[in-house]
């Protein structure tokens, strides 16, 4: 697990200054009421589980994905009132277990059984499981948890993972959360279970920015919206008066880059989530597209058309002069940093059609990566560094991955038009949006790297341009 407290402090120190330096927001506005930025999650226990609980390796995901996991309701020491649940902490305990269960179930991970199909353990049983109850149900793994309302109004949530065969604890952790952030504690529990059993990094405690779409095909309303990784805590950022497109969360979740037509032209804005203010990414009359953050949040990539020719530029996220990174005739657009920030993969039609290229972060050593036939667009470097996802255009539009050297092409989806991949924080799952032929209706989907587990994400209305942020600070 990551040192959450330390990360949070760093994020505070790096509070954005761009908003003060930049000129005032254009008079026209499409912004709704600012959304709450959320509270702090404090890790209270950090029990390093001894290695040896694992009786299998993770070379084939199908092995651990078949694990049966029992997730009964979390217990509470006493049923206390809490703003997180109108019925008190006992009911909240069951809700917490449901969130953990749905995280694991909806992503095709393991074979979880949730609290609605299981007996409720008592508070004392959380640290001393009643083994026969669970072994008789065929569970191979057992998740126990508790929730307690603390005197200061915050919630303490504990999460334990037990191996039924060994009858021993594999890992435990606990968190203190403001009541409004109770779901984050459940996501952290799901992350703990997933990480311990799969050997992969966590990804549930994260958020997604996307474009909510309504209206007929020739008059679509496109609004910037955000939600948790499971679709909860959904919020609209813009009102829909102007078209909004292609959002990207900053790595610290404090800002959003996105394209808006709020002044009549397509321009990239930096939206500050806490203050609800936004500024242009560059003071310039040219249209700007395709905003991206560097992994450390210090740099912003954007693409700008000058006289019809689009190139990629880099600017400090605190403002200042821009550096032009590409200068080939034609459209150079997008850009996605390697996790170490040393390289940028991007899209260019300099060869005559859209293909994926890579360059050093300063723009040097540009070379083409994709030679698969068809076109290749919207490359996104995995946070793990080992894969590049992109939109493969060969007849239909599909999501594909390749190695950073442009080899080992694998196509993961088979929709009519699937585009704009975005990686889960751990680089194991890819979200994208799918456009329906004819109606033009859009929806968010995700697929794992095997291509076997594909599912639609629930959104209140049609949805496009998903952008998955990192693990929350």
């Amino acid at each position, binding site marked *: 697990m990551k040192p959450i407290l330390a990360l949070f402090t760093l994020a505070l120190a790096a509070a954005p200054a761009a908003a003060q330096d930049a000129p005032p927001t254009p008079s026209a506005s499409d912004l709704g009421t600012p959304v709450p930025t959320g509270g702090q999650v404090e890790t209270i226990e950090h029990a390093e589980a001894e290695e040896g609980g694992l009786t299998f390796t993770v070379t084939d995901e199908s092995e651990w994905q078949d694990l049966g996991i029992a997730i009964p309701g979390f217990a509470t020491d006493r049923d206390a009132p809490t703003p997180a649940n109108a019925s008190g902490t006992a009911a909240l305990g069951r809700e917490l277990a449901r969130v953990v269960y749905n995280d694991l179930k909806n992503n095709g991970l393991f074979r979880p059984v949730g609290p609605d199909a299981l007996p409720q353990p008592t508070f004392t049983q959380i640290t001393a499981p009643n083994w026969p109850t669970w072994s008789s149900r065929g569970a191979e793994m057992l998740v126990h948890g508790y929730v307690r309302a603390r005197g200061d109004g915050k919630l303490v949530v504990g999460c334990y993972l037990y191996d039924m065969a060994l009858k021993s604890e594999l890992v435990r952790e606990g968190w203190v959360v403001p009541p409004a952030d109770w779901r984050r504690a459940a996501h952290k529990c799901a992350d703990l279970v997933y990480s311990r059993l799969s050997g992969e990094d966590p990804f549930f405690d994260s958020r997604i920015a996307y474009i909510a779409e309504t209206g007929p*095909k020739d008059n679509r309303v496109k609004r910037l919206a955000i939600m948790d990784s499971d679709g909860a805590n959904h919020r609209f950022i813009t009102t829909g008066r102007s078209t909004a*497109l292609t959002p990207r969360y900053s790595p610290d979740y404090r800002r959003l880059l996105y394209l808006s037509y709020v002044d*009549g032209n*397509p321009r990239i804005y930096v939206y500050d989530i806490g203050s609800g203010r936004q500024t242009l990414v560059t003071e310039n009359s040219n249209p700007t597209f395709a905003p991206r953050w560097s992994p450390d949040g210090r740099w912003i990539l954007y693409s700008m058309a000058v006289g019809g020719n689009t190139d990629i530029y880099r600017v400090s996220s605190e403002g200042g002069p821009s550096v032009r990174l590409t200068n080939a005739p034609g459209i150079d657009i997008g850009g996605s940093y390697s996790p170490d920030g040393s390289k940028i993969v991007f899209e260019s039609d300099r060869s005559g059609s859209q293909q994926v290229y890579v360059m050093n972060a300063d723009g040097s050593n540009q070379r083409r990566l994709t030679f698969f036939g068809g076109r290749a667009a919207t490359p996104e470097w995995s946070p793990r560094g080992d894969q590049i996802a992109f939109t493969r255009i060969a007849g239909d539009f599909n999501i594909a991955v390749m190695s950073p050297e442009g080899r080992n092409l694998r196509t993961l989806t088979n929709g009519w038009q699937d585009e704009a991949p975005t990686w889960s924080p751990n680089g194991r799952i890819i979200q994208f949006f799918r456009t329906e032929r004819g109606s033009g209706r859009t929806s968010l989907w995700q697929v794992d790297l095997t291509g076997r587990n594909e599912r639609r994400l629930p959104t209140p209305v049609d949805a496009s341009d998903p952008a998955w942020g990192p693990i929350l600070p």
Partner: protein
Amino acid sequence: MKLRFATVALLAGTAALAACKKEPPESLPPEPAPTTSAPTGPTQPAGPVLGTQAHFENAVNGQNVIYFDTDRYNIDSADMAALQTQAQYLAQHPNISITIEGHADERGTREYNLALGERRANAAKNYLVSLGVAASRIRTVSYGKERPVALGSNEAAWAQNRRAVSVVVN
């Protein structure tokens, strides 16, 4: 657009209206609607008023839109003829400015199509400039694939959507 009543007298009588300016729209502009009613004057015949989109479309005989091949932005001979007609109109009415809206069909990725629409709009602009229209009178904006006019998912619809539309600024 079908009305063909425009006369030189009407143009002269309403030239002053061209000076009318509004702020740029806060949202995407609505589809241009033909304006068929002259503002005032019992002696004026009905017909599109100079400075309106309807007047422009009427005068260029509907050739305010040019079309492109898939993934292309070159100006072909049909586009040249249409743009020459537009240039003549702009030469006759030096107070009129236009916005060229560049569009792409839905069979492209969103960001690339924004850049492609901008390139198409600029190709049209550059040709008008080569015909003597001042660059300062032509603004460009790309809507990528976000504003289709033909709603099908077939070649015929896509061909109609790969376009650059000249719109009078008023």
